[in-house]
C-alpha cells in the first residue's frame, strides 16, 4: 500500500473521467463524426463551392480547422460539465469534498478528462475532414505546424473543461446547465469564426468579434493548419493563455464558493 496525496488522487480522478467517457463511446466518437460529416457536406462541399477564399485556400480547407477546434471545445466543456452534473445528482460530488482531493486536483483532473475527450474528437474530426479534402481536392490537407496545433487544442480544451466544471458547480439543474451551453457557449463558438472570416463582416461586427476569446482559439488552429489567420499569431497565443488563466481562477473560485451538494 503506497500512499501519495500529491499525485494519486489526481491520477485516479483523471482515470475515472476517462473510464466514464469511454463507457459512452458512441456519444463520444460517433456523434462528432456524424456532425462533422454533416457540416462538411452542407457547408464545405455544397455551399462552400460558391464561397470565394484567399489564393490557395478552399472553403473546405478553411472550415476544417474551425470544426476541429469547435469539436474539441464542445466536448471538453460537455465532458467536464456532465461529469460534475452527474456526480451532483448521484451525490458523488460530496465524496470529492469530504475526501482529501484538493481543488487543484479536481480542476486539473476534470479538465484533463475534458481535454482527452476533446482531443479524441479533434482526431475524429481531422480524419473525416482529411477524407473529404482528399475526395474533393485529390490530396490531403497538410498541417503547417503540429506544435501550434497542439498548443491551441490543449489551451482551449483545458480552458473549456474548467468552464464546464465551473458552470456545473453553479448550475441548479441539468436544464440550467444546458441553457448555459445553448445561450452562451454555442453563440460564442459560432461567432468565433468557425464558418467565416471576420474580414467579411461589417466594421462594427468585426470589432465585436475581436472581443470574443474563441476567435483567437479558432484562428490559432487555423494558422497552425493553414498558415493563415484573421488575427496575428502572437496575439492569439497571448489571448488564449490569458483566457486559460482566467478560467482557472474562475474554477478555483467556483470550487471554493460553489456547491458540492446534491441536486
Amino acid at each position, binding site marked *: 500500500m503506497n500512499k501519495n496525496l500529491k499525485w*494519486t*488522487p489526481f491520477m*485516479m480522478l483523471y482515470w475515472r473521467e476517462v473510464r466514464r467517457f469511454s*463507457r459512452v463511446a458512441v456519444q463520444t466518437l460517433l456523434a462528432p463524426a456524424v456532425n462533422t460529416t454533416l457540416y462538411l457536406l452542407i457547408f464545405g462541399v455544397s455551399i462552400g463551392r460558391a464561397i470565394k477564399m484567399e489564393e490557395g485556400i478552399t472553403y473546405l480547407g478553411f472550415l476544417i480547422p474551425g470544426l476541429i477546434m469547435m469539436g474539441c471545445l464542445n466536448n471538453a466543456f460537455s465532458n467536464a460539465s456532465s461529469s460534475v452534473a452527474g456526480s451532483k445528482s*448521484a*451525490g458523488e460530488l460530496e*465524496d470529492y*469534498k*469530504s475526501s482529501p482531493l484538493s481543488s487543484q486536483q479536481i480542476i486539473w483532473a476534470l479538465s484533463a478528462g475534458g481535454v482527452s475527450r476533446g482531443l479524441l474528437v479533434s482526431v475524429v474530426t481531422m480524419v473525416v475532414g482529411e477524407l473529404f479534402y482528399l475526395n474533393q481536392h485529390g490530396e490531403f490537407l497538410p498541417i503547417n505546424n503540429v506544435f501550434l496545433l497542439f498548443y491551441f487544442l490543449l489551451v482551449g480544451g483545458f480552458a473549456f473543461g474548467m468552464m464546464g466544471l465551473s458552470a456545473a458547480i453553479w448550475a441548479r439543474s441539468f436544464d440550467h446547465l444546458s441553457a448555459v451551453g445553448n445561450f452562451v457557449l454555442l453563440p460564442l463558438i459560432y461567432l468565433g469564426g468557425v464558418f467565416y472570416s471576420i474580414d467579411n463582416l461589417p466594421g462594427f461586427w468585426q470589432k465585436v468579434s475581436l472581443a470574443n476569446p474563441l476567435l483567437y482559439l479558432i484562428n490559432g488552429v487555423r494558422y497552425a493548419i493553414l498558415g493563415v489567420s484573421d488575427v496575428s499569431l502572437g496575439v492569439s497565443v497571448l489571448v488564449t493563455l490569458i483566457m486559460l488563466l482566467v478560467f482557472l481562477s474562475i474554477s478555483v473560485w467556483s470550487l471554493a464558493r460553489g456547491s458540492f451538494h446534491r441536486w
Partner: protein
Amino acid sequence: MTQLDKALEVKGLTKKYGDFYAVNNMSFHVEPGEIFGLLGPNGAGKTTIISNIVTLETPTEGDVLVFGHNVQEEPRKAKSLTGIVPQEIVNHGFFNLEEVLIFHSGYYGLSNNRDRIDFLIDRLGLKEHRHKKVKQLSGGMKRRLLIAKALVHSPKLLLLDEPTAGVDIELRESLWKFVQELRSDGVSVLLTTHYLEEAEELCDRVGIIHHGELRKIGPTNSLVKEFTQRNVSLKLKTAAKVESQFLIEQLQENLRFRIPSEMGLGELLHSAHLSLDDIDDMQIVEGNLEEAFLRVLGESKA
C-alpha cells in the same frame, strides 16, 4: 497528532442558514477509541455537524479538530484520517462496486489498495456483487458499499450518519459487530442513529441534541441512571392497603411503583412497610436510553 489529541473536537460550532441556527454553539469531543453517539430528533442538526467535520459545510463560527488538525486549516490532513458514511445513498451510475472502491482509494492517496478492498468486500458480504453496477444493487447493498468506501483508507475517525437506516436486522447486527471490531482496533467512532436501543448497547458516551443545541452529554449508563426510574411491579399474596410515595397504581393485590434508578428494592419494601413474605411475584423494568432521551427532550421543551 500527539497522544493527547482527541479523535474529534468540536469547539463552539455554530452553523447558520440565513437567520436559522442549524447548529448553535456546540461543543463536545470524541476520545480516541471511543464510540460516541449523537442523538436527536429529525432536524436536530446531526448531519450538519458531520458535514462541518468533513468540510462539506463551513462553520459560521467555531472550530472542528480531527486528531488535533483543524479541518479548515489543514483539511487534507484531517480528511485523510476521517471516513464518512453519509446519511443519503450515493449512486455511481457508470461504475461497478469494485471500481468505485478503487477510485475512492485513489482520492485518499492509495493507488494499490487491493488487499484492503478485498477484505472489505468480503467482510461486508459484497463478494458476489463486486462486478455489479452500483445502480443494480439493492438499497441495503448500497449502504454496505457506503461503509466499505468509508473504510478503504483505514480511517482513525469514522463518522456514521444513520448507517442502519433501511437496513435489515441481520445486517444491522453484523454492522454493529463490525463497528465494535473497528473500535477494538483503535478506530474512534461518531455515530447518529434513531435506534436508541442500539445506541445504548454500543455507545460509550452519547450527546443528546435538539434544535441545534447540546442538551445533555455523558456516559450512556449514567445518563440512563440520571434520567430514568425503575418500574417495580409487585403481586401481593393477599390484597392489602399499601401507602408509599412511590406507588403509582394499585389494582387489588397488584402494585406498581416507580422508584429512582439508584434506589434498591429493599429500601422500597422498607418504605412501603412490606416484607418479602407478603410478596407472591415481582418484576423490575429498568429505565433505558429511550426513556432518558425523551426525558431530556421533554425537560428542554419546558
